[in-house]
Each structure stands twice: as C-alpha cells, then as structure tokens.
C-alpha cells in the first residue's frame, strides 16, 4: 500500500475526481459530463469539482442541466446506449430519489431485458454524508439500495488515489456505475501517484494490517476506523482495516482471507445499520467461516433515524472512533 517508492503528488479527493474527469475526457472523446451547474458558465459545479471541463472540452460534451434528475439520468441512459460514456452528476445523493425509476427500472435493467443488445456504460457521480449540518434531506448514504439492485456497480472510495483510480474505472466500465463521494473524505489530501490509472473495481484495499480483528469498512468510516487505531493499539489490539472501496461487487476473497486470519470482524459504515450493506457482509462471513470465528461478526452503522441537524446530535448519529474501539473490545474477551 505504501507509495513511497513511486512518485506521487498531494491532492484532495476532489482534485483527484477532477483529475480523473480531465484525463478520461482527454483520452476518450465519447466521455461526457453533465448535471446541474457543472459547466463553467455556472461556475463549474456548486463545489467546483467540474471546473474547467467545459472550457477545455466544450459545452456540448460538458453541459449544465435544468433541475430535473429524471431527465438527467434519462438523457445519460440514451446517450450511453448510443455509444457515449456519460458521467452524470446528481448533486447530492438524496436527490437520486426522484430518479430511481431511471436508475433502477432502466439503467440497471436494459442490458438484461434486451438480451444483451443494449449497453449502458453510464457513471453516476453523487455526493453525500453527514457532518456538515445539512440535516435530514442532504446527508444520507443510500448505497444499500443500489447494492440490492441487479445490474449496477456501486463504488465508494475514501482515499484520494482511490477517488481517481476508481472513477477512471467506472467511466471505462461497460455497465452502469454509481460513484459515491463523501463530504468528509472528499477534501482530505492524500498522496496520488502522478500517473495514477484505473484501479480495478471489486478489489478491496488493506489500509492497515493487523492480527486480532478485521474492520471491514468503506467511504467515511475508513477514516473513522483509522482514527480508532491508536486507542486500539493502546488497548493492545492489533486491528486490520479493509477498505472495500467497491461495494457491489464486493471483495469477498480479501475480506474472508483477513477474517480467517484474525478470527474477528466488525463491519462499519455510515449508512443505517438496519438492513444496511454491513448485513450482507456479516451474513456472508458467518456462512463462509462458520466455526472458525472467535466472536460473532459485529456491525456498526447509523442509528435508525433521519440525520439530525444539531451538531451534538449529528455527532451522536455518526459512528465515532470510540464506538469502534468499544465494539472491538466487546468481542476481544
């Protein structure tokens, strides 16, 4: 995992996303970028993530849209079927709820329903996550819905390098991909190999090697798990952190290998715990490693409520490093 040997540059996840978009549009004239306010006339995105793209690639390939997510995804589907590789932006993940028909009934199913005649090489970029006091309708992690949908891949990176490499892979992928950016990881600087290319989908990343317990996580909670390492070490616990990076399809092999070694697993995500993605991972681990586990597979996820506004409540809503430590300790005895 160490990148000391190869030349790297320091950039945030957002800069990495921007770099990936520039590179992809440069390399393939079929790549399109569109969504609300993405063109430079509109400031290159509300967050500035797409700034400079329309200036460089023109306003036919980089287009701002009306506020109409169904028509954004619909146009992306049609353009993708016609041979383009659209990268459609849904400003925030909660807004994809108005476009679920396009994503679920169409993008994800058209290849299958057409017996393989249609392909929809579409990437949907979206941002979410609690921590900015944007409250109940601007913070949800809904990746679980899409993992439970056949025909769409779900990617949720944490590190800057992964933001770049995985977005490049999503864009090149012949099938629909949902690329989830998180507000607490997107602006964190990291070392990115100067020539960072596509990182294969479906492969996890071992963020930290350890021997006592495996923390299976992704997106924002990778940071939280890393933040828990010191206290875990203090408590004499050696934790291995597996950042799934891609949730669907997820890297079963790496997870099972790690848990076979440690004998313990805690799945940690920001999405609600109830019926969340972590349940699939826990259910799979107990099934594949039955009798080989030292403790039950534990799950940490959001409480069963909407994301609250007040900072004190938002902090309580989010899994904190101390929660990770406490949970791990509960299965160490």
């Amino acid at each position: 995992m160490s990148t000391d040997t190869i030349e790297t540059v320091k950039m945030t996840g957002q800069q990495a996303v921007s770099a990936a978009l520039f590179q992809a549009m440069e390399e393939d004239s079929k790549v399109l970028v569109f969504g609300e306010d993405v063109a430079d006339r509109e400031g290159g995105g509300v967050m500035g993530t797409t700034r400079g793209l329309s200036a460089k690639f023109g306003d036919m390939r980089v287009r701002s849209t009306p506020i109409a997510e169904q028509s954004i995804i619909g146009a992306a589907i049609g353009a993708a079927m016609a041979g383009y590789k659209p990268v459609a932006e849904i400003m925030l993940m909660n807004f994809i709820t108005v476009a679920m028909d396009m994503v679920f009934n169409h993008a994800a199913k058209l290849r299958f329903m057409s017996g393989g005649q249609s392909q929809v090489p579409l990437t949907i970029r979206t941002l979410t996550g609690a921590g900015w006091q944007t409250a109940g309708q601007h913070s949800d992690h809904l990746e679980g819905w899409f993992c439970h949908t056949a025909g769409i891949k779900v990617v949720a990176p944490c590190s800057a390098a992964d933001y770049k490499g995985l977005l490049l892979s999503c864009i090149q992928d012949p099938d629909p991909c949902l690329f989830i950016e998180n507000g607490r990881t997107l602006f964190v600087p990291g070392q990115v190999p100067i020539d960072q290319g596509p990182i294969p989908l479906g492969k996890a990343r071992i963020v930290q090697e350890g021997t006592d317990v495996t923390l299976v996580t992704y997106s924002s909670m990778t940071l939280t798990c890393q933040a828990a390492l010191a206290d875990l070490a203090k408590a004499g616990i050696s934790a291995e952190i597996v950042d799934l990076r891609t949730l669907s399809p997820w890297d079963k092999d790496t997870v099972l290998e790690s848990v076979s070694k440690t004998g313990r697993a805690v799945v940690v995500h920001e999405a609600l715990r109830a019926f969340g993605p972590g349940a699939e991972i826990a259910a799979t681990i107990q099934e594949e490693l039955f009798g080989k586990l030292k403790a039950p597979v534990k799950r940490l996820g959001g409480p069963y409520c909407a994301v609250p506004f007040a900072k004190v409540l938002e902090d309580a809503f989010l899994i904190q490093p101390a929660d990770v430590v406490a949970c791990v300790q509960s299965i160490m005895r």
Partner: protein
Amino acid sequence: MQAERSNLAKPSPETLVDIYRRMIRIERNDDATRQQIKRGRLQMPYYSARGQEVIPSAISTQLNKDDVICTIYRGIHDMVAKDMPLRPLWAEIAGRVDGTCKGKGGAMHLTHPETGVMVTTGIVGSSMPIANGFAWAALLDNSKRVSIAYFGDGASNIGAFHEALNLASVWKLPVIFVCQNNGFAEHTRYENGTGCANIADRAIGYGMPGYTVDGNNPEEMYGYAHEAIRRARDGEGPTLLECKTFRFMGHVFGDDDSYMTKEEKAAAIADDPLPKFRARLIADGIATEEQLAEMQKAIEAEVEDAIEFALASPLPSIDELRRDVFATEIPA
C-alpha cells in the same frame, strides 16, 4: 397550436400505399397475436394498439432505419411500423431464444437496434427522458438522426413528461414527442386525469410547437410528422405531436370495457381508419383491390411464418439468468 393544413406536406401516392402497408401489417400482426393468445399458445398481458395504426405508420414512412424510437408496453404497432422483422418479434413474445431479447424481455420490452427500436418501457412516461439521450447523441455525432418518444395521453400527466420536454427544448434536441391520445389511461377517461383541453396546449410551457392532430387521418398525420421531422433534422429542436385516436381492445386484451360507453366504442370502431383508408386508396385510384389483396396475402404469410418460427424456437437456458446482467457473465 394548429399549423394551417394548407402548407402541410402532402404524401405521394407511393407513400400513401406505404403507409397502408405498415397499417395492415400492424393490424394483421395484432389480429394474429390475439388469436394465439385466445388459443393459449402465448401467455402474456397484451396491450393491443388496434385502432392506432395510422400514427406510427405515417411517421415511420418518413424515417430512416437509423432514426430511433423509444416506445412503451403498447408499442408493438410502433415497432412493426418501423419495419421490425416479425420472426424475432414473435420469438420474443413467445419467450424463445430466437427472440429479439432471447425471451428475457418479452412483449413489454422488445428491443431491436437494427431497426431503431431502442427502448420499450413498461413504466409510464419513461420513454421520453431516454429519447432525449439519443437525440443528444445525434447532435454530438453531427448526424441528422431523429429520435422519437411514443407515449400515451395518461403519460402526459407524469413528471418524466415535463422534465423531458423542458430539457429537449433548452437543449434544442432533435426529438419528437408523439402522444398517442386514445382518450383513456387504463380505465381513466382523459378529462378525469388531465387538467388541459388538449395535451398540445402544454407545448407552450416548454417553448416548443405542439399540434393536436387527427391521428386516424393518414394525410394529416403525415403532414404534421413531416414538419416535426423537418424541424428536428434542420436543428430547430423538438416538437410535441398530440395524435387523437382510440384503442379498440381496451387497456389490456381481455379487460372489460365497463369504463367506456358501448356507444363511444361502437362509434370509434365504425370509424375504423384501416378499412376507410383502404377504400380511399382504391376509390382514388391510388391502389387497386388486387394490389392491396396481394399485399395483404404476403403480410399474412409473413405473420404465419413468424408464428411457426417462433413456436419452433427453443426455450432459453437458465444460464441466461447469469448473462447480460453485466457485459461479463456472472460466474455460476
């Protein structure tokens, strides 16, 4: 809006005959489908478009193979009008491997890119946003390709209609929104679900021309379609065509029509555009009785052949569940 009839393009005699050819092919195919269902040789909910033949026929006679259509569950007439071959069509509705979609999509999701049948959706309204994407691609390709979205009157009340027409207008897309207004949405009468007198009235809300057209009148349909296609090819942007028609077989083949009056149904059937048009062609000397009988026999033979082909085609292997989910097959 009403573009004066006078300056509408007029179809040539050959074109009129071609429109009729598409109409009779649709009708013969629809009739055979209903026979096969009655005989229990096909199982599926069937949304017959009997009575709506003129609309896609008058449009398709002006389309090229690479012009694309996105249509709906009640869309087999649109596909047949676009000259989709009947063998893969029948194999699909019979759920066989030789179907357009290997039997995986079925009647509601027939797809046939070679003839420009790109998407068939079962979701009301969803043909429109996707048709925009094909139109955008045509602009990017610097092609004169036209994209057509077929949908019903009821679909004009759902959000996707609004978003799609607005985007098409803002982006000046070469797309035509063809509303086949048969007066009913399932069991709901037009005026009980729709706030405006004519769906074409909605066009002004998108800054695009909208026309209310007699969808059972081949010349009129031809003329307005010609104008919409011209606008699209000339880069003038989208057009909304509201085509008034009637469906003779109810919402789904076999449903009871209690929600419509016997009189209105009888009147509509008495006004069946197909025999009327046939008589017209002969009366005006545009075609002869023999010629049209010939044509019909050939089409009936084509349909017969397609049925036999379809029912002789093997059933798909269950491995198909792992195929076409993604480009690469899912391991067993």
